[in-house]
Each structure stands twice: as structure tokens, then as C-alpha cells.
């Protein structure tokens, strides 16, 4: 699988680390209630189809970015407006 890094272009998936559901908050605020923390940690989108997700170009530009990918076809899609 080639992953379109917005900074480096398409690169082999082995250069990346996966970051999961991009709609989860990037960090859980200290004030969050236990229920909010639980939801942020554990209740992630798991769609069969387009998925907004995070990738980290660990062996490249070291940037985290969001991509849309169809989990049924593994095709990367243009970011939805």
C-alpha cells in the first residue's frame, strides 16, 4: 500500500505508523470526566467504507496527518470538504 503523505507524496506504508480514528481527540484534557476519557480512548469510529484516520510518517518527514481511506478497498480518497 502506498500512503499519500501530504509532504512527501506517495510512500510505502512501511514508513508510516498508524494513528487510528482521526475524530478522537488528539489528547484527553486533564479536566475530562472518566466517561469522557473512556469515550476518547476506546469508542472509535470503525466504519466499513471511508474512514478519517491519522498517519505518522515516522521514517520520513515525521509529520502526523489526516487521510481519508476506504476500509473496504484500502483506497485513499480525497479529503472531504
Amino acid at each position, binding site marked *: *500500500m*502506498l500512503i499519500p503523505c501530504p509532504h512527501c507524496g*506517495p510512500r510505502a506504508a512501511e514508513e508510516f*505508523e498508524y*494513528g487510528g480514528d482521526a475524530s478522537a*481527540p*488528539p*489528547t*484527553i*484534557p*486533564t*479536566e*475530562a*470526566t*472518566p466517561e*469522557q*476519557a*473512556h469515550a*476518547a*480512548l476506546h469508542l472509535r469510529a470503525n466504519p466499513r467504507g471511508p474512514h478519517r484516520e*491519522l498517519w*505518522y510518517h*515516522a521514517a520520513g518527514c*515525521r*509529520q*502526523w496527518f489526516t487521510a481519508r481511506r476506504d476500509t473496504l*478497498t*484500502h*483506497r485513499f480518497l480525497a479529503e472531504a470538504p
Partner: protein
Amino acid sequence: MIRRIPFRFDGREYRGHERDTLSSALLANGVRIVGRSFKYHRPRGIFGYGADEPNALFQLGDEPNCRGGLTPLTAGLDARGQNAWPSVGFDLGAVAGLAAPLLPAGFYYKTFMAPRRLWPLYEGLIRRAAGLGRAPRAPDPHRYDTRHAHVEVLVVGGGPAGIAAAMAAAAPGRRVMLVDDGARLGLMAGDPDARIGGQPAADWLAAREAELAAMPDVTLLRRATAYAVSDSGRVDVIQHLDGGGARQCRWVLHAGRIILATGAQERPLVFADNDRPGVMLASAARAYATRHAALPGRRAVIFTGDDGAYGTALALQAAGVEIEAVVDPRPHAGPLAEAARTAGIRCLPGQVVVKALGARGVKGCLARPIEGGAMRRLNADTLLVSGGFTPNLQLFTQAGGRTGFDEGSGAFLPVAGSTAVECVGGCAGAVSLAEALAHSLPPDAMPAVEEAIPAPPSTLSVMPKPRGLRGKRFIDLHNDVTVEDLNLAVREGFGHIEQVKRYTTLGMGTDQGRTSGLIGAGHAAGQMGRALADVGVTRPRPPVSPVTFGALAGGHVGPNMAPSRVTPIQPWHDANGARMAQVGSWRRPQLYPRAHETDQQAIDREVLNTRTAVGIVDVSTLGKFDLRGRDVPELLNRVYVNAWSNLPVGRCRYGVMLREDGMVLDDGTTSRLGENHYVMTVTTGNAERVQAHLDRLLQLAWPELDVRLTPVTEQWAAIGIAGPRAREVLAALAEFDVSDAALPYMALAQGQVVGIPARVFRISFSGERAYEVNVPAQHGQALWEAAMAAGAQHGIMPYGTEAMLTMRAEKGFFMPGFEADGRTTLDDLGLGRMMSRKKGCVGQAALRRPAFAAPDRKQMVGLLTLDAAQPMPRGAQIVADGPSIGHITAGLYSATLERWIALALVEGGRARMGETLTATAPMAGQSVPVRVVDPVFLDPEGERLRG
């Protein structure tokens, strides 16, 4: 062609020529039985030409399951038949044939259940009977290469359709690659006199191929098989190489456009005893005869439902084979049949072969009219079959392509547009050369094609078994799956073709049903009373044909299996007897044993020397991050549990980081080098994880923070000098003041050390006065050597990770991976008081979940054996009485304390101080009473640190 090259098969000597494959040479030498079948151990002969071969699988020395048709003949080749003992000619396993009535599909699900204790015995017998060749015992002497390439257009298959596709795609500046395995069986299945552009088809093809090869942007991969298509247009190809270098090259291609010209597979026909040696696919026989001058026999019956095999009859007749008859279920065939008749070949339309005669080799067959009637005997030593063609769509379906049933050809054809991968030629249903070329070439580029256009094929595959005739009808020769097996599966209620496959093992052989899949599905559909179009075929899985493990691993074998990192001081460690150990991706000195020392003695010496004099350790592997910007303290406040706002320039501080879920992630020191400049160290094994964590927070959560993070682990060599005499050693090296006043505990200094720009941190992981000297990596070894020289008079000795781990345990310092095992919190480690109340940090919210306040959480404690000399059992669990309440995370002998100690995680451990528990290792039969104590065994006040 004269056959002069000597080779052996099952111990007998034969000869072949340089264009032979093992199969063609065996055929030419009249060898009939080349193997034994998978289940019934029936004698079998050469059947196919390439990867579809079910029978001619050989043991070549140490290598099993080598397909004879894919093995070029070389002098001295020593081949053995498989699945037979003592030999393929006489195989004791053939008694399985006698028991055949007891071995229907899935018989093993119905028996061997009682008595239960005998199952292992039965299983052993089943296992020994199954399997093909013998697995290699010796290491593989070969090398395998891997190459990557990107192309605009990839064409798979070098027959007429593939050549045409490549011609159409080729253009200056456009990278086109053509991958071809050389079989080109399409040419072996039609009109032998076909002409393209006025030339014989094969010559036209060769000329076009040469033209393509001469084009600068076209690459031809010969003897190469594309075996998998995956996401983003990736195609994996295995290329077989000759000569002295690598044996195979695996190509990882990424293509903008993928065009499949993979042709079609000839299907067998099914009748009683259709597996006898001498029964062969017609196109294979023709290829052996015309390309290798290897005749399949002297006298052949050809049984076909397709016009192409009439061409084969003509070609074989021309090569010197007598044609007894061509049997064809169709009442009428096309012009090639006419040509055959004209050439004096007896044609029997409307007839079918119902049984092959001869046990150890074909002696003839019985044929009769399709609608029934008297049987006639035809005499022949060879029975060639052609049951129509199945498009090779394995790559197409791998790419997600859908197929639709085509009534005319009785096969599934690609549905155009169902995937981006395109199909041309035979795999797209073309039945003539003209059609195959026209799939790619525009009308103005089409050459003139002269060929016999075939009549529609018969779709009959399974012949009836006339009353009173015996003999198994094999649908899948690879796994000995018969018509009766399929009938049984359907009768027992397996209503889906994938279930039928699993129950009968149909199509699970080494060709993955390439030859049998469609026939089996058609027959099963009939039994179910449903249409084949509706039942469908099983899905072939990657790879299209089997791929050698060595080629998949490429260079990633032996020491290069995974990269191994070393520090700049590695040459010194190697030269000075260090015992190295792999720690994650790093190689690190474990200890430096001296002659006649046991490991424990070496560790004790290294520890005691550090505690009483001075030790030196290579800590270059520690993760290091350079942090710059106004908001570094804010970042540190947010990621560490403790507060960082007031760290002065020139000072170091210890911190602990949590994961988002509240578990301890890592610990280490961060030091302030300048106003807006810090350096952070993290545990060796956690560097990548912490980097991703910090990058994520900085980029996604807090982009407003002015912090720039740069990983500098490999830029700096780091050397720890520890022990009561550490300062003397450092003083001899440093060109600045290292007195306690100038460089107190948890301070840092920057300056020249033996002429090298250095940073010196006064931090300690051993509990001793210690300095960590960081210098640019290229100076690491020089610094180390200078320190060894300067330290000689103070008794300096290197110490490894074992001594380091011992000293940290004596001090009760937790370690990620040991006590911080991903399930422990800060409080579990006894560090709850570190958590700042003035500010929040990552992970704090998640810790408010109720389970983290439970009193029976595992907490870190120290343990002492009641008898100081009594070793802690290794890997021990802790029990009070009853089930485990904890486990030892580090149990070791402390030379400093002259006793065994341990760190442990114990349920409610801090409330158990002073209790006696049991450390138990039932596997080793050890149980040792231990007392729960504070985890800090040595110098709780930290006096040694401060000096």
C-alpha cells in the same frame, strides 16, 4: 536434437538435451510413472506443462515439490519421485487404494474418535501418509534478490495478446514492462499453421518481442511470473535467473496501469481412470513435442471438446505420433477438424471417452456415443485431453475484479470496469489470435491474421460412467478428489462451493484449482440442481503459483534478518571481550567477563568496582531529543507528571510520562542547556514510541506551542562514569571545573573534554556519584579510551547492562518493560507523590476511572529472601496462600548487599511491608519464603549520589 546431458531419476540414468525441462526429458526417455498421488498413491505420469502440473513433482536433492515442467534440465540433475516408498514404480502406500471405499471425502471427520487415546496414533498415520516431498534439511545455498520498480504500464503475459498490449502501450518516455513466464500455451492450443502479418505466428511474435526489447523505455522480464496484485497497483513478480548470481529475483512493482494477458488454462476431461500415466493435457503434449522434441508416446487418442486439439493432432502427427482417433462430443467441429480429416486422421464426433485402459500406463480407452450405446476400444499409449479453456483470472480477482458466467464458453469472464486492472486476450475470452490482438491494437495497427476460426466448444466435462464400468473419475488430480467425493459433499448438505472445496479439498492442491476448479464447481452445481452461474467458483488466493520462501525473504536472512544498531564505541567493546546482547534494535555489552570468571562473578565485580571505585558504561543507546523554543517548559509540564516551570539553566530534572490511558510510558531526565534549549533523554527501547507521542501532541494537540523537537539519539555518544572516584576521572578529562560546587548533583556543564566539545550531566542511574558525558558521536570511542586511560589509576572498569540492572534494582528504580509493564500506574510504582497538583498532564484524566483506586492493585515492593544466600527463583510468582498475588520483576544477587533481592509487583504490596510471602516457581519446583520490604535497598537518603 541429440540427448547427451546425463541426469538421474529415481536412481536410473537418462539423457536429455539443453532445451529440455526435466519433464520433457523424462517423456522423451519414455518414463511413464513419475509420482504417486496424494491420497490413494496411484501411479501418475506427466500431465501438464507448467505450474498446473499435478503429478510430475520431484524431490531435487533437498528441495521438494519441484515441477518437472519448470525445471530446466542440467547435467547431473538427480530427481526423485515423491510420496512413494520405496519408489514411484512400486509403492507400498498404494494399499491406500485398496482401502479407498473407506476413504470418501472427509472420512476423517467421521472416524478415529474412539477410543480417544488412540487419536494421536491415527493422526500420526494420517500425517505420514499426507504431504508431498521431504522438507529440506540443509541450509539453502542460494541467494535471492529483491528489486523495486515503478512503471506506467505493466503487461503480464507475453503471448500474442500481451505483446500486442505492450506494443500499443509503448511510447517514448513511457516506462512499460512486460512480464512473461515463457509458457505461451495459447500458441499450443490453436491452429498450428496460423500466420500473423504473413509470418508463422511464433515468428511474428518473436520479431515483435525483439522490437520491444530494443526500445529504451520497455523492459522485458523473461522467465518471470507475476503472482500477486495488491493495493496501490503493487504487483509482485518472481523472476528465475541463471548463472552464478542470485537464483531468483523478486520484483516489487508499482504500476500506473496493469494489463493482464494471462491467457487461459486448458481443462482436463473427467472419465473413469482419467489419471492413468499417459493421460495428458493436449496443449502440454503439443508443447513438449514441438518445443522439446519430446513425444508423449507413439500412438495417441485425443479426446477434446474444443477445436484447438485438432491442431494438436496435426502437430503431433507431423512430429511422428500416430493418431489413433480424435474423439469429440460435439456433432460438428470447425475447420481444423476438417484439416485433420484431410490429413487422414480418424475423427469420432458425437463420442466421448468413458474410461482409460491400463493400470500403470495407458493402453487405450473406451469410447462410446455421447447419448449412450456400444463402447468401442481405441488402442493407444497416450490419451490427450482438452476440455476447453478457463481464463486465468487469478490476478484479476485478487485485484478485486468481478467475473460473470459466459454460457458460450462455459467459463467465467472478467467484468470490465469492476477493477482498474484490465484483461486482454485469452483471459478476456478471446478464442482467436485476431481477437486477442484486437483487444489492444487499433484497427490501423492490426496485422493480417490467417487462422482457422474455431467452432464453439463443448461445455461437457464429466463423462457418465456406464453401468458395470469401474474406475475412479478424478476431478482434481492434485488432491485425488473424485466425482463421488463431490456427490457426497452435496448429499451431506454442503451447499456453498467454498464448503464443498473445504470438505473435499477440491482445488486446494498446488495449482489452487486452476485445472479443476471450474469442472468441480460445474459438477457440484449439477448435483445441487443449480446453475453454475449461480454457484460460482472458489476464489483463488495469492500467490498465483507457489513462491519460494527464500525469494520472499530476499536479503532479510541470517544476520540481516533485522537491522541491528551499534553505538560508536562498539569497536572497543568487541576488542575488549564484551559479551553482547540484543536489546530491542540495539546490540549492547551485557558484561565484560574475564578469563575463568562465571557470569555472576563478572557482574559482581563490575558492580562492586563501580560502588567502591569507578565504572564506565556506554549509554549511547538512550533516546535523546533536542528541544528548543519558548514553550518547552509548558510542553514538559503537560507531558511529565511533575512540574517543570522553574528548572534553571544548567540543571537537570527527573520526570515520568504517562500514556493517554494513564499507564506509565517512560521516565528520564530533561536538562536545560540554555534559555530556550533543552535536551530530553528517554529509555533506550522507548525512543521511537516517545518521539511519536511527542510529535503527535505537538503537531495535533498543541500546535500553538513554540517547541521544536529533534531526535538526536545517534548524533551523540554517551558515556556514564560512575562511582566514588568518578569525579577524579572526570577531572582528568574535563577542561573545566567539575567540583561539587561547580557541578552538583542534577546539574550540567558544557565545555571541552579531552579537546572534544561535550555536555556533562551529573545524573545517576546506579545510585553512585555519576557523570554522563555526551560528545558528538564520532568522538565517542576517543572519549571512552581517554576515560579508560585516565581512570586506570583509579581502578576504572567497564560495566555492562547486567551490572547496570543490578545497581538500579538495588536502588529501587523502576524500569519500563519490567515494573512499568503497560499495566502499572505512577501510584502502583510508589511514585504517586510525584504527581503535581498544580497542573495537569497527559494521562491524568483516564486515571480517575474507579479501577485505578482499587486497594488490591499490584504495587511495586522489594523482596528479601529470608536466607540471604537463598537465590530468588527466576520468573517467580508471589503467593500468600492461594492463587498468585504478584510476580517478581527483577530478582538478582546484590554483591553490594551480599544477598539476594528482588523487585516485585504485589497486590496491595505497600500494605504488606514486613509480611512473609512465598516466591514460587512451580516449573522449577522452587518455593522460597520472602519478606516484603521497601524497594529501595541501598542508600535511601541518596548520600552516595551527592558525594
